[in-house]
């Protein structure tokens, strides 16, 4: 990866933060902690890795993404808007009456959203089904699955882990946003075992890579198709910080859901736009 692409993807990640922040603020609040922790992953996926076409979002010949931590939908919508699937200002209708942008992902409403999610764990299985469909239809495309670490409490994820290995779903890539926090608190105080997500996926027979989830360079390298053993699904553990990119949230306790008032919006916008400006200056 050259440094120009690296900077482009870093800027994309910050723009995902900015656009989802504005959408969540317009709605009054939302799950910014988990949106900000996966911003770099979304930027690498939609900014470079995934083969998708905003003018033909449902074409069978495309890479797919299932955001199983469906409450973080605004982050995905921001990436899609920046990619050209719909105008950026549409995001400001988030959760408004009659909106096409409900904060939990809805494949029937939002162009480019590949699966309906929101009941945690379920996106794991539907992603496996989509990957299986591509194999059956001999479509050489990949399915990316983003899981939260709190979500790993759900048994359905591990049912899927057995199934995907058995079916040799080598075109399935699960990215685990290991930000260490879920609604009620730190994962280590609730189901501490999820901190071992990498070892768990490896023991289920998956390829496993662990990267700095805020390094677009490391994520990009892990997402190259050559990485890992053929015939196995791949789990990429993203070591992340919940709320990354806004000092009011970053690394703080209880940032699963945040209410954003006007002053806080300005404060967060200022932090993010300053970073964007310095990244652009470096280009």
């Amino acid at each position, binding site marked *: 990866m050259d440094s120009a692409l690296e900077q482009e993807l870093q800027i994309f990640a910050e723009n995902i933060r900015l656009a989802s922040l504005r959408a969540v603020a317009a709605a009054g609040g939302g799950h910014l902690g988990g949106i900000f922790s996966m911003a770099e992953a979304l930027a690498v996926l939609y900014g470079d890795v995934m083969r998708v076409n905003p003018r033909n979002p449902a074409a069978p010949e495309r890479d797919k993404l299932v955001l199983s931590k469906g409450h973080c939908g605004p982050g995905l919508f921001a990436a899609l808007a920046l990619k050209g699937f719909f105008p950026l200002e549409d995001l400001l209708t988030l959760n408004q009456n009659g909106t096409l942008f409900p904060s939990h992902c809805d*494949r029937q409403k939002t162009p480019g959203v590949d*699966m309906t999610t929101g009941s945690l764990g379920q996106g794991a*299985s*539907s992603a496996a089904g989509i990957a299986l*469909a*591509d194999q*059956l*239809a001999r479509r050489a495309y990949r399915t990316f699955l983003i899981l939260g670490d709190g979500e790993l409490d759900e048994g359905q994820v591990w049912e899927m882990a057995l199934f995907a290995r058995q079916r040799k779903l080598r075109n399935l890539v699960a990215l685990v946003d290991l930000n260490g926090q879920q609604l009620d608190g730190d994962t280590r105080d609730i189901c501490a075992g999820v901190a071992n997500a990498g070892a768990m996926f490896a023991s289920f027979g998956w390829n496993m890579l662990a990267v700095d989830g805020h390094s677009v360079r490391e994520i990009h390298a892990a997402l190259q198709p050559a990485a890992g053993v053929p015939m196995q699904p791949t789990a990429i553990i993203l070591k992340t910080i919940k709320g990354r990119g806004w000092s009011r949230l970053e690394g703080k306790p209880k940032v699963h859901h945040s209410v954003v008032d006007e002053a806080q919006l300005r404060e967060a916008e200022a932090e993010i736009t300053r970073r964007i400006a310095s990244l652009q200056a470096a280009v």
Partner: protein
Amino acid sequence: MPIIDGALEMRQVFYQSVGRLAAQDERVVVLDADLSSSSGANAFAANYPDRFFNCGIQEANMVGVAAGLSAGGFIPFVHSFAAFISRRALDQVFVSCAYAGLDVRLVGSDPGLAGHANGGTHMALEDVALMRSIPGVVIVDFSDPGMIDPVLDASMRQPGVYYFRLFRKTRENLYPQGTEFELGTAYIAKDYGNDATIISAGFIGMREALKAADLLRRDGVAVRVLDMFTIAPLDAGAVLAAAAQTRAIVTLDNHSITGGLGSAVAEILAGRTATPFRRLGATGFGEVGTLDYVLEKFGLNAAAVAATVRGLLGV
């Protein structure tokens, strides 16, 4: 009730029909949860090994994978025992299949009292209530193998979530071969007269309903029997016609008294008619025993149906 010599079991007919669709349409795939030798899906697997997926004992994942297969352009048929495909995987059916607007066919075998050999854990007495509460789910309870081809053919023309109740092992045909059935339209199984109407669905319920009609006929009570094999969407016209044309209605559920076919009929009749109406269905949990024993225990056999009709008519 004719038992045709050498006739196939209901499960064999079902997966032959799925195989016929698979031969015509390469999108058709079959999933099972370690029950393929019980469901009969193993016969499909033998013919289409690349289009059959034994998911293991994991109903939630299986239903979710089916949703993903549908999102990827396939038409999955997904089996487990009725108790598990409904109760156990209900949120996956709701969110990943129905709410997501996908095309998935759920097959629940041994519905209601058909699970009598395994008892209360395996008896689905609430599966219809659960599925009926999810918008758009089409529910079919097969009483005769002749229904399978026309229903599956119709389902191929109309995408959505289907829930098929399948009594696996019967070889009994309740109706003559060649009888025509249409998805969504009640089948008039007997039309002895207009004294009353008995409405049921599925093999176990319909067999008792038809026996009850014959018992009543011997006593001079002439009834109509409706096979409401499409439980959702319900044929409201047939129910209202029965209310207008006959003097009483009795429903017989191979299911809990709460939320099943009888409840669906009640929802149609409420506020529209004064025709005397009673519902028969199971109360409480299931238990092991012979089919005759559990039918008797829950008051769902032909004698109970006939007595209920006589009670309503005062004869």
